[in-house]
């Protein structure tokens, strides 16, 4: 069966100029959303969710640790995805997005490791163990840092972006390793408390707090990534007519 092949138009709509205008309108709302969800999430995490029967108050670290760990993995996949699209289709906006995501992904990875260490010390009696989950998450941090170092070392974006994309794509293999590490190996790190197939093994109020702080982290990630993407657009497209046209309006 043959279909009439219409020219692919997605990328014209994903032109940097369109993205710049749209993200500019979305940003105030995203920052507000991050603040409101963060406030509600912290209230729920500290004042509504009860003390954990076995871990005491130390368990409250999970309301930042778990969202940070989730985002560290998801942002990596998003970064590799956009880097690949940018490489394969020479889509400028996709490459810019990959570059904009990397620092935020590295930040959430670092936060997952720091909060994990701060939880590990009182709970396991050690800041760090060479456990499969912890080690693979540390490798994720190195992948982010390696990507950033690589793309910053090559000045010309047309050469830096494909090189970064290759590194990002090879590194994707680490994501399932992190995710399944607690099942594949005997890890000190506990298994998942929440799964798609079974009822969550935590109190309803704890789950709500986790949901709120996760959504807050998402809103924050979108806001800060969009801000960085807008800076990158201006830096890269400064000679284009539409960026020159921005000069008139004082922002």
């Amino acid at each position: 069966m043959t279909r009439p092949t219409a020219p692919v138009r997605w990328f014209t709509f994903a032109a940097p100029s369109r993205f710049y205008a749209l993200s500019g309108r979305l940003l105030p709302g995203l920052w507000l959303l991050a603040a409101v969800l963060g406030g509600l999430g912290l209230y729920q995490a500290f004042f509504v969710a009860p003390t954990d029967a076995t871990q005491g108050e130390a368990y409250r670290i999970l309301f930042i640790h778990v969202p940070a760990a989730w985002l560290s993995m998801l942002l990596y996949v998003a970064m590799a995805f956009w880097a690949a699209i940018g490489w394969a289709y020479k889509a400028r906006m996709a490459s810019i997005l990959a570059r904009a995501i990397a620092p935020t992904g590295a930040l959430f990875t670092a936060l997952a490791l720091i909060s994990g260490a701060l939880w590990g010390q009182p709970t396991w009696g050690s800041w760090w163990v060479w456990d499969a989950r912890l080690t693979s998450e540390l490798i994720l941090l190195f992948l982010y840092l390696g990507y950033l170092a690589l793309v910053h070392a090559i000045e010309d974006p047309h050469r830096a972006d494909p090189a970064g994309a290759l590194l990002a794509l090879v590194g994707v293999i680490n994501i399932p390793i992190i995710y399944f590490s607690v099942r594949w190996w005997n890890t000190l790190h506990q298994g998942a408390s929440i799964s798609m197939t079974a009822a969550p093994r935590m109190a309803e109020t704890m789950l709500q707090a986790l949901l709120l702080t996760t959504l807050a982290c998402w809103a924050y990630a979108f806001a800060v990534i969009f801000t960085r993407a807008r800076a990158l657009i201006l830096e890269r497209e400064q000679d284009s007519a539409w960026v020159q046209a921005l000069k008139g309006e004082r922002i």
Partner: protein
Amino acid sequence: MNWHSSTDFFQMGGYGLYVWGSYGAALLLGLSETLLARRRHAKALNTLQEDTDL
């Protein structure tokens, strides 16, 4: 209600250092990143304005 007093709240059942350390790190990293990203955008805009004056 989980806490009887503000001291109670800050002590976090003896885990204060670890709990507040985690949230403090999150706040510090988040604020710094926000500041850096916004500054980068402002700088790009400024460079653009300066070019006009040439």
